[in-house]
């Protein structure tokens, strides 16, 4: 091969595009919101198109085995950094781009002005997220985590007030320590195996001697500490509810996605390294993930019942969702994993919509507005009710109520929406996976998930009743189209996910089948040849 097919370059676009657009935005004057928003939106749409294209390419058999490999700087796999677009990465990219578009449109009305540099930071956050989903190198994963976190530090503080600073201090401190732990894990793994390439690591793990295999397991456990801090597994996730409750609505919606990055990293590394064919290390840590996930679900469910305001409740909801996913990853098995990924899609979309919705419903009650009044004054934003920009939509309360109900149904896992389909298929797969007697942990997990659903429905109903049925205190807020449309779109996506469950499950079955064949993955990544120079081209290096 002398020339790389141009479609292969699409793999690096989700990293480069937000980087370039974000960098271009920095010199633009703070006051030109329209231009920055336009650039950000264009970048978001392009990213979405590229992500969908990657998904079609990965699933359509364009690459052998559905795995596209991009060798950065043209170095062959274990030496250089390889970016890998398989079905799972492509799916996460589409999810990221979808939520990012909704959040961008939502923030256009007001939030991008409540502070400086919202749009560039948002682009850098997207770059970090996309990079973390695409990379196949542990140290490169660290770098993309840091890009993502550095942008999120800025965004969490966005709309600077005392509450955000207090929460942000803890969020940043916890994540800085987690980053250091990440580095220790990476260095232990390198010391044990001599490689940082995930596919190569998976291929080598069975060949390690007893002592090195032991060191590798220690390293992987330390690394998991860092991932699980991001993924908020109990007892590493105490930072999360405070951060969610104090972050501004658009940032909160992106934070929902960021906890999923931690879960994704665990899934990717564990299935590739400790999946089938890992020799003595096979199955290392899966039981711990199941138990930890179960503890997390319980913690989140109790937290949801105990929380009073919407943001905090959403935070605990995110904890329940990551706990469920971790338990499912630990449980392993193809059909269970496919249902888990379906649960990830539904719960992420619903949680993101819920974060945006909370901010809108808080306008029903006047005290909510006071919170941002100071920053709005500081940045001289006028929020006149008779503002001619945009038209208030009719039937706001009906819209808010219906969206709230839809989100609540998905989060709690009640019929008829996606949450129910996900939970039902999870139970079915877990019970079907053990025909000769279901182990106690599986029963425990099923019980906990039902309990968490009950807790969620109680907590959300209480919040809904207090918000929408509060006697005399309800005044329909004015909503703009640009605020209502993203929430509505995310809710409709949840409905579509339910209606098209068959198609989605087919895709997810192919995804998990690919994930479980870690040998093929390693062979594909390590076998990708670099582009050679044409024989006639001028001088060798």
């Amino acid at each position, binding site marked *: 091969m002398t020339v790389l097919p141009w479609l292969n370059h699409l793999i690096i676009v989700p990293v480069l595009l937000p980087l370039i657009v974000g960098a271009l935005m920095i010199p633009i004057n703070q006051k030109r919101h329209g231009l920055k928003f336009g650039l950000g939106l264009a970048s978001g749409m392009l990213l979405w198109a590229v992500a969908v294209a990657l998904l079609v390419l990965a699933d359509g058999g364009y690459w052998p085995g559905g795995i596209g490999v991009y060798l950065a700087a043209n170095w062959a796999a274990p030496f250089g950094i390889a970016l890998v677009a398989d079905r799972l990465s492509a799916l996460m990219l589409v999810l990221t781009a979808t939520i990012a578009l909704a959040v961008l449109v939502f923030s256009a009305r007001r939030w991008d002005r409540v502070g400086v540099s919202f749009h560039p930071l948002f682009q850098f956050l997207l770059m970090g997220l996309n990079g973390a989903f695409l990379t196949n190198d542990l*140290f490169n994963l*660290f*770098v993309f985590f*840091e890009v993502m*976190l*550095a942008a999120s*530090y800025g965004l969490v*503080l966005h709309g*600077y*007030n*005392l509450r955000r*600073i*207090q929460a*942000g*201090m*803890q969020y*940043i*401190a916890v994540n*800085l*320590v987690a*980053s*250091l732990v990440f*580095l*220790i894990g*990476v*260095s*232990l793994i*390198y*010391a044990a195996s001599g490689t*940082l390439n995930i596919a190569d690591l998976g291929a080598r793990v069975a060949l390690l001697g007893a002592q090195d295999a032991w060191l590798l397991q220690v390293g992987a456990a330390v690394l998991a500490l860092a991932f699980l801090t991001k993924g908020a597994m109990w007892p590493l996730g105490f930072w999360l509810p405070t951060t969610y409750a104090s972050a501004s609505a658009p940032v909160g919606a992106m934070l929902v996605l960021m906890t999923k990055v931690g879960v994704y990293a665990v899934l990717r590394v564990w299935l590739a390294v400790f999946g089938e064919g890992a020799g003595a290390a096979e199955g290392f840590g899966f039981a711990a993930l199941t138990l930890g996930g179960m503890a997390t679900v319980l913690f989140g469910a109790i937290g949801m019942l105990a929380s009073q305001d919407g943001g905090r409740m959403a935070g605990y909801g995110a904890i329940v969702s990551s706990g469920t996913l971790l338990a499912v990853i630990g449980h392993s098995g193809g059909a269970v994993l496919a249902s888990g990924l379906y649960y990830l899609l539904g719960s992420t979309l619903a949680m993101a919509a819920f974060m945006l919705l909370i901010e809108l419903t808080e306008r029903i009650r006047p005290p909510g507005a006071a919170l941002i009044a100071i920053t709005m004054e500081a940045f001289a934003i006028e929020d006149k009710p008779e503002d001619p920009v945009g038209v208030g939509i009719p039937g706001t309360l009906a819209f808010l109520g219906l969206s709230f109900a839809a989100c609540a149904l998905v989060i709690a896992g009640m019929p008829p929406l996606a949450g129910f389909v996900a939970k039902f298929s999870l139970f079915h797969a877990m019970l079907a996976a053990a025909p000769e007697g279901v182990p106690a942990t599986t029963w425990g997990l099923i019980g906990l998930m039902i309990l968490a659903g009950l807790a969620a429905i109680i907590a959300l109903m209480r919040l809904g009743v207090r918000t929408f049925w509060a006697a005399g205190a309800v005044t329909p807020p004015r909503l703009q189209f640009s605020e209502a449309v993203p929430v509505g779109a995310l809710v409709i996506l949840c409905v579509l996910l339910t209606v098209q469950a068959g198609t989605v499950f087919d895709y997810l079955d192919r995804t998990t089948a690919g994930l479980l064949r870690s040998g093929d993955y390693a062979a594909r990544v390590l076998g990708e040849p670099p582009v050679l120079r044409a024989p006639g081209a001028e001088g060798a290096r």
Partner: protein
Amino acid sequence: MELVLAISVGVVFGAGIWLILRPRTFQLITGLLLMSYAVNLVIFAMGRLWVDKPPITPTPAIDPAQFADPLPQGLVLTAIVIGFATTALYLVMMIGARGLSGSDHVDGEEPRE
């Protein structure tokens, strides 16, 4: 040499852990700095310890056991730069918190007696 390095990493890291558990932001950031130094030493040592060995060879077909591993050196540089940047970011944040809350406690308010 391994023992000396291991002990110094342990002492520095331990001091860092003690400091990040303290209530004032200055102690916290000093602790984070110390911990990141210790981590950098760990990364540096992970390619085994070498003395007076060049990391890169211009000619191929030479016994690689005679050379130091260049990768950890590259990694530690990246880690130093990233650690430096995030620490600077945290310092800015601390100054903001101090200005807004009037307290240098990590909770943003003085503990109630």
